[in-house]
């Protein structure tokens, strides 16, 4: 199926999400839509899928202008979308999910014909090599199979054009490799495929043509043959991708954080972190890299007292903090920048001033007994807003109205107010502008230099490379390797992220097997 977008412009109050975007692909082609978070990729595809209506421009299917009012219209026209967050009802079976909205029924009452659905699903499964049990409940499926069901859901609706929105974000390297194979097969069978991603390696491997978006505009069109990952990266960010942090050599002291045999369960009671052993010395930054969902979140939550440890111990400067509450940890000088700053880091409807004392509100001088002392809170806030360069109209402004960067500065200011012995920062700069990133990186390094042990968890390879004194790569709940000094290279981290072991020393560079999966070093979607 031939799909063409001409001059698509979509505006939201205050932002232009897409501006005059043109693209076109033929059947059997894979088009990679590349761009950073917020570049407007998803908005564009939502226009194509009928979830939004473009303010200007037109969509052509097989050279016919179409107008989609709802996703239903798009589906009828043969467009299917696999959403980043799966659109499968957990308590329904695969068959029920796949037929939803497109049910085969019998009788005047519209009784579902599940046999028919099962048969179609099995046929599709065989045809495209996407095995799945039609009668399994979706909530029981592993994530990779769930995604297969999502793809089948689009095929079930006879989609000729498949839109895949960041399909690899939740997959392991092997699953990614398998998905790439499926995509290739689908394309070979004549489907046209649009593949949204910000990972360069994938793009280079599977795309026929590449369209790069930045700030809602197309900033480049190319093919894997005509470009390199570096070329794509600079197109994506529009500047030199290296992120330089002015970072003096680390002067590590005594071990500050010691983690021994730590195992942690996730929300589904599966083992997410498995007998982990490591330590961080004072004045040292340990960065934990890895594909999302390999236990990083649970590790951080265990250390910061948000989640109980299943086995093992955690010591801070010799004191056992394994079962300490967040409040106790705070009194022991732990600073924590949570992963989800809006949900976990701030009470958005609270003022900046109140957010700055969110964990010290009942301490002197901010409270006397149970009476809060507002003048103290306010002068404290004024001081921090100035020190940390928080751009806010006033300290009484709601934190929720600040920009992402300034919100993060509020959290950093709060957590860095008193000298930390241990600083834990999860994805500290996700989604921030360059200025804020550099500022926050600088602050983190300063914190290290004042003697704190720092644990950074980041899925941004550039951030890891810029900040880390040592890098631990997490894979399936364990460290697949810990790198130090000169060992820290993109290639090595990439291999470790894919779960391969790297011998220390140079040999690793030579005996590296050709990775069948993406080279995650390409993950440097960097800034």
């Amino acid at each position: 199926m031939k799909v063409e977008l001409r001059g698509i412009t979509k505006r939201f109050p205050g932002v232009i999400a897409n501006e005059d975007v043109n693209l076109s692909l033929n059947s059997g082609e894979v088009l990679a839509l590349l761009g950073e978070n917020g570049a407007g990729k998803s908005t564009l595809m939502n226009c194509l899928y009928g979830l939004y209506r473009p303010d200007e421009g037109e969509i052509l299917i097989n050279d016919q202008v179409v107008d989609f009012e709802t996703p239903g219209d798009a589906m009828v026209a043969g467009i299917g979308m696999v959403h980043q967050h799966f659109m499968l009802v957990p308590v329904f079976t695969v068959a029920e999910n796949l037929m939803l909205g497109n049910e085969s029924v019998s009788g005047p009452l519209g009784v579902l014909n599940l046999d028919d659905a099962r048969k179609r699903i099995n046929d599709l499964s065989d045809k495209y090599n996407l095995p799945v049990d039609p009668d399994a409940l979706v909530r029981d499926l592993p994530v990779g199979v769930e995604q297969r069901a999502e793809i089948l859901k689009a095929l079930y609706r006879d989609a000729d054009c498949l839109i895949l929105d960041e399909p690899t974000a939740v997959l392991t390297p092997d699953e990614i490799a398998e998905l790439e194979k499926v995509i290739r097969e689908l394309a070979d069978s004549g489907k046209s495929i649009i593949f949204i991603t910000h990972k360069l390696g994938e793009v280079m491997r599977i795309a026929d043509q590449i369209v790069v978006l930045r700030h809602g505009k197309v900033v480049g069109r190319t093919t894997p043959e005509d470009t390199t990952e570096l070329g794509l990266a600079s197109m994506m960010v529009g500047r030199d991708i290296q992120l330089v942090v002015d970072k003096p050599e680390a002067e590590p002291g005594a071990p500050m954080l010691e983690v021994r045999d730590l195992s942690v369960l996730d929300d589904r009671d599966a083992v997410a972190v498995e007998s982990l052993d490591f330590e961080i010395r004072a004045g040292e930054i340990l960065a934990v890299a890895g594909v999302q969902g390999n236990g990083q979140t649970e590790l951080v939550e265990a250390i910061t007292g948000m989640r109980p440890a299943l086995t093992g111990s955690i010591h801070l400067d010799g004191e056992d903090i394994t079962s300490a509450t967040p409040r106790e940890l705070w009194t022991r000088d732990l600073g924590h920048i949570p992963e989800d700053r809006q949900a976990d880091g701030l009470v958005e409807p609270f003022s900046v001033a109140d957010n700055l004392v969110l964990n010290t509100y009942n301490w002197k001088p901010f409270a006397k007994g149970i009476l809060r002392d507002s003048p103290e809170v306010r002068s404290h806030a004024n001081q921090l807003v100035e020190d940390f360069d928080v751009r806010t109209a006033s300290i009484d402004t709601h934190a929720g109205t600040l920009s992402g960067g300034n919100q993060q500065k509020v959290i950093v200011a709060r957590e860095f107010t008193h000298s930390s012995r241990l600083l834990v920062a999860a994805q500290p700069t996700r989604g921030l502008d360059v200025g804020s990133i550099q500022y926050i990186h600088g602050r983190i390094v300063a914190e290290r230099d004042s003697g704190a042990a720092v644990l950074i968890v980041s899925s941004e390879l550039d951030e890891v490379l810029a900040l880390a004194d040592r890098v631990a790569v997490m894979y399936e709940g364990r460290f697949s390797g810990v790198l130090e000094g000169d060992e820290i290279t993109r290639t090595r981290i990439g291999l470790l992220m894919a779960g391969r072991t790297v011998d220390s020393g140079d040999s690793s560079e030579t005996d590296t097997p050709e990775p069948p999966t993406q080279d995650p070093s390409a993950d440097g979607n960097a800034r």
Partner: protein
Amino acid sequence: MIDEDSPGMNPGLAEAASGEFPGEIENGNSRTPRWRKFLRSLKVPALAIFSALFLGGILIILTDTDVLWAWARFFNDPMRALSRSWEAVWDAYSALFVGAFGSLSAWSETLLRATPLTLAGLAVAFAFKASLFNIGANGQMILGAIFSAYIGFTFDITGWILVPLALAGGVLGGFLWGGIAGVLKATTGAHEVITTIMLNFIAAFLLAYFLTTDTFLPSGSANPISKNMLEQARLHRFISGERVDIGIFIAIAAVALVWWVLEKSTLGFQVKAVGLSPDAAKYSGMKVALIIALTLAAAGGLAGLAGATVVLGATGVLTGGVIGNLGFDAIAVALLGRSNPWGVLAAAILFGGLNAGAVNMQAETQIPVDIVIVIQALIILFVAAPDLVRAIYRIKKVDTEEAQSFTSSWGSS
């Protein structure tokens, strides 16, 4: 944009039900003086009350046969139809107003009714601050009434001790009843709306049971009416010949206390943080489960105090219907007062006035008192759906008034 499903807690409720919409009070960056902001915050409630009275007026016209006859002859004498309509509504509302605020004894009746409404309204409003929907004020009031009545007719000691003791008993009864819902919510995630509804029923049956026991009934009686409170247990009536008692001062003191807790204390800071963002509260080390349990228990305590003021004040005895629907009226009061303690007081006085005035209205115009329930329903409707009010009056949405995105669910926990 399609919003994420966010089951579990309902932070929207705290915002939505509160007067402190983002930008309205806390957002101090605007240079508007306080009094103007205060006036602006009155706009929606005032229009809601006006609209409700207007629609109530239409209802009066539609159900008055004389007026309808006048309308039937509209083309003969249009002025007559209009004037008769106007008269019917005017008579009703002026009787309502006079009965509510027109004299000392009107004020007495109004404040008497406002007392439990204020306290129970606070019980609902305080829970709103933690994003909890306390639909169980009724049951908590009943428990408070049982506890305090028992103390009030049993211990023949000086009033200086007995009254505080009986009031404290009321607080304790409500505290325990609210605490059950609170502990269930905190430990098992059971939605407080469902548990408090169940607890309302259980409380009502418990009361019915106690009113069959010898402990509560006067000897020899099988009537479900308890012994009289001891004379010294009754709340002091400070205007001779009028029924209003010192309960109203207790209510005002409770308003001040709740305001102080919410605005000035670290406890209130935690309650609000839990209500607005339970995750951030947890991350910053607050004991979210404890705060939830405590908030519902404290709300129950306030409702229990409300129940105590009823049996120690107005009625002096415990009966099966002593609390009636007050706990549900309290929801209306809390919504109209926008969960602000002083707003609750004002709303309670308004509702107390409506209830008191309705009696006078029925006496003078034969319009049934029940019309005030309709008016109350319409008031909450307009307060809860300000978009309706804005649509009706073509008010432009000022950005200082937050869009109402209520969310509240007992969807998966």
